[in-house]
């Protein structure tokens, strides 16, 4: 039953299922690297999913949908940035507020779009490469957004670890006072990272409605935002590891369908639980072990006020 064909189709769908997680994880990684904890990922993702879908329905252009999903994510992230950076408010609480806001807004406006048909983003089969045995199916039959996600991970890795900007972002997340003392504009860095992070999370949502599920339903993110938060921890705030983590979790999601389809005797609901259980375990571990050991930015979630001793 576990033949090569099964495995390669499983891997291919893992990538598809993992891509929305990857976008969200990359976005949140960027945000958290600057020291801002945005727990609103679930809310931003669902808003992206809805905005992308609606814009595609209205304009017939799914790419415009993706772009606007990004903007919608940015708008919600702006609320978070305003509260946490400018007003120095409690970040977890603002984040949770954004989850409720996102779910609420999309629930309300989304009703009339349920059952609508949008123009979707379709896979492209890369000539020659996609016909390779097995490998072709796994790697070269995806839609452009899936490839862009991987490129983005590479770009983000480069930005963080190879450029001055990255140095400034990491320093801001680790020790904002130190960054400030050498002239880094802490508030600006945090705004930019939170907004860009929101943009990516929004696109992750759009991927869900326009490329993966190809439909809109209320609450369709189904906890993927929370999984992404765990993935950020799981990947140790490293974009390159986020790719693996996202595909792995995508795979767990897909496995439940596949195993059910071929009639394995594990109840469907148990299989469905696996990603969430793993999420909880990851989060538990990160709480039990010292945060620093996991590589969390030292100033994550702590507002910065110049001249205020800690």
């Amino acid at each position, binding site marked *: 039953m576990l033949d090569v064909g099964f495995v390669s189709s499983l891997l291919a769908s893992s990538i598809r299922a993992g891509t929305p997680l990857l976008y969200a994880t990359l976005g949140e990684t960027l945000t958290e690297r600057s020291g801002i904890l945005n727990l609103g990922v679930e809310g931003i993702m669902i808003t992206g999913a809805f905005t992308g879908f609606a814009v595609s329905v209205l304009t017939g252009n799914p790419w415009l949908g993706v772009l606007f999903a990004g903007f919608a994510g940015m708008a919600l992230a702006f609320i978070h940035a305003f509260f946490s950076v400018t007003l120095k408010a409690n970040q977890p609480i603002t984040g949770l507020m954004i989850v409720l806001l996102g779910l609420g807004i999309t629930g309300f406006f989304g009703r009339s779009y349920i059952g609508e048909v949008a123009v979707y983003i379709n896979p492209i089969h890369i000539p020659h490469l996609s016909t390779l045995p097995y490998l072709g199916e796994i790697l070269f039959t995806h839609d452009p957004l899936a490839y862009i996600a991987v490129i983005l991970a590479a770009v983000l890795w480069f930005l963080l670890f*190879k*450029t*001055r*900007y990255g*140095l*400034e972002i*990491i*320093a801001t997340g*680790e*020790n904002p*006072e*130190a*960054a*400030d*003392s*050498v*002239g*880094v*504009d802490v508030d600006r860095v945090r705004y930019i990272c939170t907004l860009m992070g929101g943009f990516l999370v929004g696109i992750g949502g759009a991927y869900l409605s326009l490329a993966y599920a190809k439909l809109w339903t209320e609450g369709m993110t189904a906890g993927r935002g929370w999984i992404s938060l765990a993935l950020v921890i799981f990947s140790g705030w490293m974009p390159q590891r986020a790719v693996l983590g996202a595909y792995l979790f995508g795979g767990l999601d897909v496995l439940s369908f596949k195993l059910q389809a071929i009639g394995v005797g594990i109840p469907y609901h148990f299989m469905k639980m696996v990603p969430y259980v793993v999420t909880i375990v990851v989060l538990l571990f990160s709480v039990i072990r010292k945060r620093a050991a996991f590589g969390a930015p*030292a100033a994550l979630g702590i507002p910065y006020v*110049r*001249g*205020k*001793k*800690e």
Partner: protein
Amino acid sequence: METILEMRNIVKRFEDVVANDHVNLEVRKGEIHGLLGENGAGKTTLMNVLYGIYQPDEGEIIFEGRKVRFRNPRDAISAGIGMVHQHFMLVPRMNVLQNVILGYRTPSDPLINHKWVESKVEELSEKYGIDIALYEVVMNLSVGEEQRVEILKALFRDVKLLILDEPTAVLTPQEVDSLFYALKSMTKSGLTIIFITHKLKEALKVTDKITVLRKGKNVGTVITAETSERELARMMVGRDVVMDVAKPEVKFGKEVLRVEDLWVKDDRGGFAVKGVSFSIREGEIFGIAGVSGNGQKELEEAIAGLRTPARGRILLNGKDITRLGVEKREEIAYVPEDRIGVGLAPSLSVLENLMLKDFKKYRKGLVLDYEKMEDRAKELIEEFSVKTPSLHSPASTLSGGNIQRLILARELSRSPRLIIASQPTRGLDVAGIDYVRRRLVESAAKGCAVLLISEDLDEIFQISDRIAVIFEGDIRGIMDRKEADYERVGYLMAGGLEVAV
């Protein structure tokens, strides 16, 4: 020599506290200008105003002949001012190179040109004799090395004026010497330095001129060559200070603390304390000398109950307390080396910090008797002269020295049987040092056992009855003060082995 910096009538207030009260400061190009003052005199505040961290409420700054207004550190940096803060501003998880160039644009910006940085750093190292491994992670550096990174950071930006806020407070004597050497060579190449310190000897040794602040006011500027320790002390404190606390001979009583073959691990899991044994009697001050980082922290934490030893026993008044929690060790007063982290709850008020261990005593039904607590706190603040805006200000707003007094007030007022005092006078001004040593001696005279852990040999020799040296977790020789001398202790501190003579 021309004037490079003039600060005129600077006023800075924090709510009711006037940290700087119409302060004037004039610094000439190429000099080392000392800034002296008691704890809370406003030295750090004045420099933070200069560096753009605070905005002055009144007054003006003239730098290189132009009136300037720095809205943030970036403005100050681009004008050519660098600052090494009292508490270092480094990112522990980044390496030295990354810390040095943080916020700086290398020629290939936004990419980082490692080769270019390396050669520039090498040039600087040679010129000023500052040696440092560029790719070491800052977390693994000693305090002295961290300071070199901070200085390098400033030099790298081609500063004209370098501010050093109490740079020697955390250094070993050898490191102080090499710092002074570097400072001298910097002024030779035209740099100007403002040097904040409490230590009169150092100020006299390294500066050209000295400005003294007292209670936020400028008391005067003197030429170093024409002044003396006595005059400076009088300017700082406003009266003559005598610095001659001596430990009177007392009859030692029963044994209070006994440590037997103690092994303690550090955070990384290696042994930091390796089989240490000693005992302290009533009325005795037992001094442990040693360079910071040789297991002192782990040893004191094990005795205070913050860290469980891997092996060995700790006995207090003959009772085994090796595995008891902190709350069961009420008879131990602990003045930790890490004041902000272990000794204090920075966001709680001064009152709450003072009462932290005594809340139980002030229970009134279900609530606390705040009136009574306030009365007691006022007494303590008076007695230990803690300078604070009010009882209700967060402890974190106190100056470094006053934080130390606050901890002492809480710990010593609880009539302990054993006092663990770790670097108790680090960062304190003359009057403060005198005061703390006096308190320790008094406590011992009342029958307390005192464990004094210090890097400052003067301190160890001044008040200890017996002296031990700790090196790499091992106690090298315990001797009576009368038979100890500086050379021998210094030799053991640097890792020398005791040889039978």
